[in-house]
């Protein structure tokens, strides 16, 4: 076997309170396409940040050998000097600059401090030809689609004489046609001797182009598998085999026992969404949520599983007052009556609440106190002496005090600034806000993201209590064990479509993962 182009040995990276990577190994042979697989939070991106110098040498333990030499990168420029270039999921292009300017951004063709535009354009044209892009190098990047922008990123990488190209979810934002083109290009680059590391959730794509795959789970290397012996041979590895590696962990979370709702209307349809279709807010060509229909009954907790970019949050936010994207089609019914959810107030009036996955950006007023954050969604109901438009602050405060006790929000008073609370307590404040708005349907988007195990259990208890009161709960999560532990039914989504519906009895991580990675190709 030839000498590997890249060897990462014993990489351990710790963030305050979290061990993101623990003794990770990765070996990439020259000229191969090496895939990295793992669930969200398995440590893939962190590993790539260590490799590309985003996490500087010294902030992690372990050794990186590139082309046989031990290397220590202090920033991205240092790794790029060696020919390691990373293309992030979020493209790093400046929209109002031209393709050529973007390609040479930070690497300007300026021999004496002045930019040589002829040389810049000539070289840019040559690079564009290599990636198969026929647009003029003077076109502003904002005027070309996401697929082409991805190609510009690769051209930019090629301009730096790349030896190892790292692509983080390169096709997540692309349609099928653009994805296919991009994968072709990666294969061509391999033929030119450029090795690639590709991070992807799409197992069919990995099977199509990768030579080997390394599986990470909980910050550890699980195994490295060979996908194909020679570049042209058929893959010998099944998707199921990869999935088993990705999810094969013991259930280490604990869940409360589910309480059954025994009201008269138990089992009645509380939420029913039909034919919901939404386009991307900027790129109207792209359908982000495609003809989704689902139901949730009273007293039921229904999960939505899906990998990043599957369209779960987009679905939830567009149902909740069309807060995301461009609405195309679909209806929402609450308790069997069709309701308008055109605006957030309409959705709230219809009895729907949405607890966001990003509480700091979309859920809380961090500079205000617990008291006022909890009351924000139900202020009109806290009338002072029955006068509409006035708030009874004593009533408001007693409500806040009640939730501080019942939700176990750890704060000295309800006048504590929300920005000072821990993630788990912030989440309890957001939940309190929406529970007090007294909705029939609660959409919880990643309600346990970024909070510690103890607080997670408390959140699960709250969710169970809501269902036991006859509320309908739609539970979006990337953590399969918590969906399996909490839900009566689980829908799976991939690429904006529902790809499966699994009952609690049938659900296993393998089954869910198979549905979640089911892409057309």
């Amino acid at each position, binding site marked *: 076997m030839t000498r590997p182009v890249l060897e990462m040995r014993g990489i351990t990276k710790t963030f305050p309170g979290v061990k993101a990577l623990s003794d990770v190994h990765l070996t990439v042979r020259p000229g191969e396409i090496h895939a990295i697989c793992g669930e969200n939070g398995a440590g893939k991106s962190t590993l790539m940040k260590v490799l590309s110098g985003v996490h500087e040498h010294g902030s992690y333990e372990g050794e990186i050998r590139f082309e046989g030499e031990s290397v220590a990168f202090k920033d991205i420029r240092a790794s790029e000097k060696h020919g390691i270039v990373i293309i992030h999921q979020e493209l790093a292009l400046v929209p109002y600059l031209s393709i050529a300017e973007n390609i040479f951004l930070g690497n300007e063709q300026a021999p004496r401090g002045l930019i040589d535009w002829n040389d810049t354009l000539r070289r840019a044209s040559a690079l564009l030809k290599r990636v198969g892009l026929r647009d003029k190098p003077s076109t502003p990047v904002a005027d070309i689609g996401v697929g082409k922008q991805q190609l510009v990123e690769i051209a930019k990488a090629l301009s730096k004489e790349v030896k190892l190209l790292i692509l983080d979810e390169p096709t997540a934002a692309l349609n099928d046609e653009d994805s296919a083109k991009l994968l072709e290009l990666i294969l061509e680059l391999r033929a030119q001797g450029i090795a690639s590391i590709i991070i992807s959730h799409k197992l069919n794509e990995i099977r199509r182009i990768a030579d080997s795959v390394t599986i990470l789970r909980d910050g550890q290397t699980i195994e490295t598998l060979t996908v194909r012996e020679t570049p042209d041979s058929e893959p010998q590895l099944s998707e199921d085999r990869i999935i088993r590696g990705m999810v094969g962990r013991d259930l280490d979370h604990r869940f409360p026992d589910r309480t059954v709702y025994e009201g008269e209307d138990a089992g009645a349809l509380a939420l029913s969404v039909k034919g919901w279709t939404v386009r991307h807010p900027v790129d109207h060509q792209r359908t982000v949520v495609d003809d989704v229909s689902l139901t949730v009954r009273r007293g039921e907790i229904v999960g939505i599983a899906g990998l990043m970019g599957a369209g779960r949050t987009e679905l939830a936010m567009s149902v909740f*007052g069309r807060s995301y994207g461009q609405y195309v089609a679909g209806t929402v019914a609450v308790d069997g009556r069709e309701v308008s959810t055109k605006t957030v107030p309409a959705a709230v009036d219809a009895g729907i609440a949405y607890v966001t996955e990003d509480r700091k*950006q979309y859920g809380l007023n961090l500079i205000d106190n617990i008291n*006022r954050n909890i009351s924000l969604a139900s202020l009109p109901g806290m009338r002072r002496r029955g006068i509409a438009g006035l*708030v009874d*602050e004593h009533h408001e405060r007693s409500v806040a005090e009640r939730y501080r006790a019942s939700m176990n929000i750890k704060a000295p008073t309800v006048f504590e600034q929300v920005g000072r609370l821990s993630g788990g307590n912030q989440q309890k404040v957001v939940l309190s806000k929406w529970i007090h708005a007294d909705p029939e349907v609660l959409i919880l988007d990643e309600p346990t993201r970024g909070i510690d195990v103890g607080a997670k259990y408390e959140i699960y208890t709250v969710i169970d209590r809501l269902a036991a009161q006859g509320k309908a709960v739609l539970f979006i999560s990337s953590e399969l064990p918590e969906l399996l532990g909490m839900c009566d039914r689980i829908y799976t989504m991939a690429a904006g479509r529902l790809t499966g519906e699994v009952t609690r009895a049938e659900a296993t991580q393998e089954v869910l993962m198979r549905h979640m990675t089911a892409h057309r190709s």
Partner: protein
Amino acid sequence: MTTTTTPPKDASEAPSAQRSTGALLIDMMRANMRQYGMLVALAFIVILFQIWTDGTLLLPSNVSNLIQQNGYILILAIGMMIVIIAGHIDLSVGSLVAFVGAMSAVMMVKHDMPWVLALVLSLLIGAVAGAWQGFFIAYVGIPSFIVTLAGMLLFRGLTQIVLEGQSLSPFPDGFQNIAKGFIPEMGPYTQYHNPTLVIGAATVAFLLFREWRHRKQQLAYDLDVTPTGLWVAKCVAMTAAVVAFTLTLASFHGVPVVLLIMCGLLITLGYVMRNAVIGRHVYALGGNKAAAKLSGVKDKRVTFLIFVNMGVLAALAGCVYAARLNAGTPQAGLNFELEAIAASFIGGASMSGGVGTVMGAVIGGLVLGVLNNGMSLVNIGTDYQQVIKGLVLLAAVGFDVWNKRKVGR
């Protein structure tokens, strides 16, 4: 006015202080650090100039003068504070003051319109101007900085057009009274101004009643209340302040009309910002617009109304200023927007929005007003006055930034 809101700063006044009293005070102070800090600074400035001017500053005649001199800036500052809390800015208010003053002059001087009608129409013009700007900011989505910068040019230009570059005067006496008048004397001669004494007594009664009711409601809802000793101390301090202020005014001509207008605004808008749904929505929008929208706040309507409110207040300030000058002039209201913005920031507003109180804007405005008045009394030139006011603004906000950083760690 300067001392009516003095909080019970002195913990030793509360003899029955419980274990938590100190902590409670610190919490209260910390939550409103800028405002309490500014109140202390205001008291300090007042004492400083009181000594420096050999007691002229707090002479009854000068206190009256101080109120009438600063009335229009305080009115603007109240509106500006709300705009800034919502995360916006309004640069057009100075020009709008001039424009409305000019329009009122045209109506009353050229067309002999009754002053009450002219006043109502002037406020309406302000509302329309505010709606015009609010429309572009809220519904079209142009940043408020740009829209009101345009408004600044636009209204200044319109002022010159309607006045044809000339000043118009004089106004009817009734109109002039808005800025220069006092409430009329009634009853027997008592050496004091009788209605002012009555108003003062009523204010004390009202404040004490409000405190008592607030406390009763808190107890009814089973919430923590301020310890009794501290509460009594607060009531005593408040009463003393109002009595002192009342006697000062009553020994001159009594309560200026402007003061009545200002107190009306302070009470109403303070109440709206604290206790009305729309007021809360303003804070929520300024604090986190995305989260507020996702909580059902009608962001566009709220933004629109904020600017309508600012327009009406600018019009009111315009009338008061014109009445004080007894003329509509093309150069009226120059740099008023900057004074109002400075008052808001001194009084506790934040560049990023979401914090501040109407009371804070008044305190900030008074700091500037007392500085202006005091420095003029001791014959500091306007050149040095500007330098000092600039430094005060910088120091006030700098102190706040420093304090927040310290608390945050």
